[in-house]
Structure formats: C-alpha cells, structure tokens
C-alpha cells in the first residue's frame, strides 16, 4: 500500500486539477493505492498556501504527518525537495499539462511518471516575485535545477 500525495486545486479530490506549485497549492489530495487500484481518497487544505516563508517545508510536513510515501509534483523548490527527501517521500514528476488528480495517479500506477531526484526550480519560484532581491537558488538546497521544465 502506498499513499500518494498530489498538490491540488480548490478543495482537492480525484476530479480536481493538479496544482504545479507544491508549497502554495490550495489543497493536498492523498490517494491510497493498493494492488494497482485507488482504494481511498482524503483531502486537506494546504496550511502553507500563503505562508510568509518556508511554505515548501510546511507543506512537506503535512505530507509527512499524513503518512504519504509518494508525492507527484509539478514545480518543486530546493527547500521542499530537501524536506521531502529527509522524510523519505519518493518524488515523481507530473506531466507538464493540465491533468486531474485521478489521471495523474493512474499515470503513476501505470509506471509512466519519472522519478525526481531533487528540486526542479529555484527557490521562491512560485512566489510571484514577492521577495525583494532575487537571489538565485537557495544554497545548500537539494540538487539545484534537476530538470528544467519549459513553462
């Protein structure tokens, strides 16, 4: 049995759309998968969606506290990547297109998603420029810019 966490829009759920901004998505949908089938679905609002800083870390914490062992993500910053890594949560890259939680979990079950080894965007990527001086990728983060996605 695995619990797959998917950052989702709105209140979450199987029919909601995957939100590529990991730390700042509106909700998380936790999907329990067993024997290649979706067994159970749970949703939680993302408490970190408008946190001042460390949103990725706080979001990772939510995943950890809900026993997720797999996360399917769009964009992942260095802090979030490191936090998920230290919780031994396996990361998979979502396809770069609008997709429902249900479909992306199915892609995962079918083995069509690539495993991700670390961050794929710099820090504060999803912040809409809130922080005064852009300062490249936060040092020491996990893996820098693994695989640049063309957005």
């Amino acid at each position, binding site marked *: 049995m695995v619990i797959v966490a998917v950052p989702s829009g709105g209140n979450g759920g199987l029919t909601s759309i995957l939100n590529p901004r990991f730390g700042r998505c509106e909700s998380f949908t936790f999907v329990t998968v067993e024997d290649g089938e979706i067994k159970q679905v749970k949703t939680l609002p993302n408490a970190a969606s408008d946190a*001042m800083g*460390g949103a990725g870390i706080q979001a990772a914490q939510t995943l*950890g506290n809900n026993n997720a062992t797999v996360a399917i993500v769009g964009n992942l910053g*260095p802090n979030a990547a490191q936090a998920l890594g230290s919780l031994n949560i396996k990361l998979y890259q979502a396809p770069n297109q609008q997709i429902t939680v249900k479909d992306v979990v199915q892609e995962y079950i079918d083995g069509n998603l690539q495993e991700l080894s670390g961050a794929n965007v710099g820090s504060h990527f999803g912040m809409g420029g809130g922080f005064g001086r852009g300062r490249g990728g936060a040092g020491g983060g996990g893996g820098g810019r693994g695989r640049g996605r063309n957005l």
Partner: protein
Amino acid sequence: MPEKAKIITVTGGKGGTGKTLVAVNLATMFKNAGKRVLLIDGDVENPNTYLLMNGELENKAPVYFFKPSIIETKCSKCGLCSKNCATHALLHVDGQYPIPFLTVCSGCKLCYKICPEEAIKEDYKTIGWTYETKKNNMDLWIGELKPSEARSAAVVEALLDNLKELLEKEPQKYDIIVLDTAPGAHCDVELLLESADLIVPVTEPTKFGKLDLLRIIELIELLGKPYKAIINRSSLLGFKEKFLEELERKDIEILGDIPLDDEIVQSYCQGDPLMDENSNFNKEGEGYKSFITIFENLNKWIREKKTASMEGA
C-alpha cells in the same frame, strides 16, 4: 564643546551609480580638511571601498548567526518548536525529531527559548566578517557577507553594533563618519539610513537612475531624514539639464554633479582616491572641480543644519 560625530550615509537606488566613488572621496576630502574620519563600507555583498584606496582587509572578526541544533537525547519530539517557528524553518513530523532548515531560519532563537526540554542547543555559524583597517590617515570598517549566505542585514547589524559601541565609549573619536550602503532599498540599507544624520543618494541621469532615486527617496522620507542628491556621470549623453529640471519639479535638492572624467576612471583603476591630497591628479580637471563644489555644498549644508538645530534648542 566638542561635538558628536556627524554621520553621512551615501546610498544609491541602483548598483553602479558611483556610491563608493562618492563615499571614498567625501571621506578623503574631510580628511584633507583635517577632520578625523571613519569610513564604513556597508555594501556587505560587494565591499570594495578598500580597493579604491589600495587598502588591505585586516583585523578580521567573524559575524555569528544563531543556528538551532537539536539535542536528540533530550528532545521529546513534541513539535512545539516547529509549531511556533514563524518562518517554518523546523520540519517536524509526528514521532520524529525536528529538522532545522538553516536557509529559511531567521535566527530569532524563539525555538531555543520555548523548548520545554531544553533540547535546542544555542549554536552559531559564521555568516560573514568585519574588518578594521587604517588607510590614508583614516579608519576604514568593512563588512563582508560570506558567499552562499543570504542574511546580509546581520552583517550590517554587526557593523552598526560596533558603531554604537564606539559612539557610546568614545563619542568624540571621529568628527565625520561616512557610511557606504548597498544598492537598493532593502532592509540592510534601511538600517544604515536610519543611523544617518544626512543622506546623500547618488544617481545618474537616466530613466532607470531616476526611478531608483525616487524609490530610495521614498524610503528616506519615510525615515524622516534630510537628504541631497548627487548626479554622477552628469555629462552622459546631454541628459543632465532635463534631469535637473525634473528633480527640481519634484523638489529634490542637489548637492552637485560629477561629469564623466578620465581621471576618475584612472583613480578607480589605480586605487588612489581622486581627491587625496597626495595623489597627482589634475587639480583643474572637471571631475576634481566637481568634487570640490560638492564638498563646499556639503559643508554649507552641515553648517545650516547646525544653526537650525541650535536655534531649535
């Protein structure tokens, strides 16, 4: 009665406007005039005043920054620290030890103070250094942020703590203190502006120069500090007149302007301040003369301020 040192902060909304050139040469002219001068380089991500003066970095002292570290033998995994950390720098999952994320930690020490088990050790990391040097008969303090660190304000604070201590212990050691800030209008610049008696924003006659000048002036006015601007590279493409007009319309007073000048470039390359009395630059050069005018205007301004404050008293 001897007076307390006057603090003049040189700033600029944008990088490369010539802040450091102005700060070094103002300090040098005060020194020429027999004043006891301290120059502080607060552009901690890019300190280069000493290069302009052929100085060395001496008397290195580390700047420490709090870093939480968890003593696992004491920690009860209660998660209180994580719940209360405003920057979410402590990752805590039920049943596990919290994990600090130092890149987000603000160093506030709250976790250390509230941990019921005293399981957070008061630990420190070095995030930069301060230096104290003597060069050309003036004292030079420099702050330097360690590459890969992000908390420049903490290094600026270290410089200002030293300054505060100096002003308490020996308020009359210097007549003039010149502060050079980083470009921009962020929090470490604000700290240096707050300490100033007079502020001199340096700009250049371009659209970007104007926008950045207006931005920094907004901050200066918020802090309620007196300021007068200097326009560097004023002969640039003949924009000066129009630029001056616009500033006048906005009621921005000018201390003077510095034209493009080969000797300024040369002084940069040689690491000899243009205005040093021992330098052999042309005393009739346009750059040289412009600095003399600026210095006269600055002294006049200081005198006006003094009379005003005496009348006010």
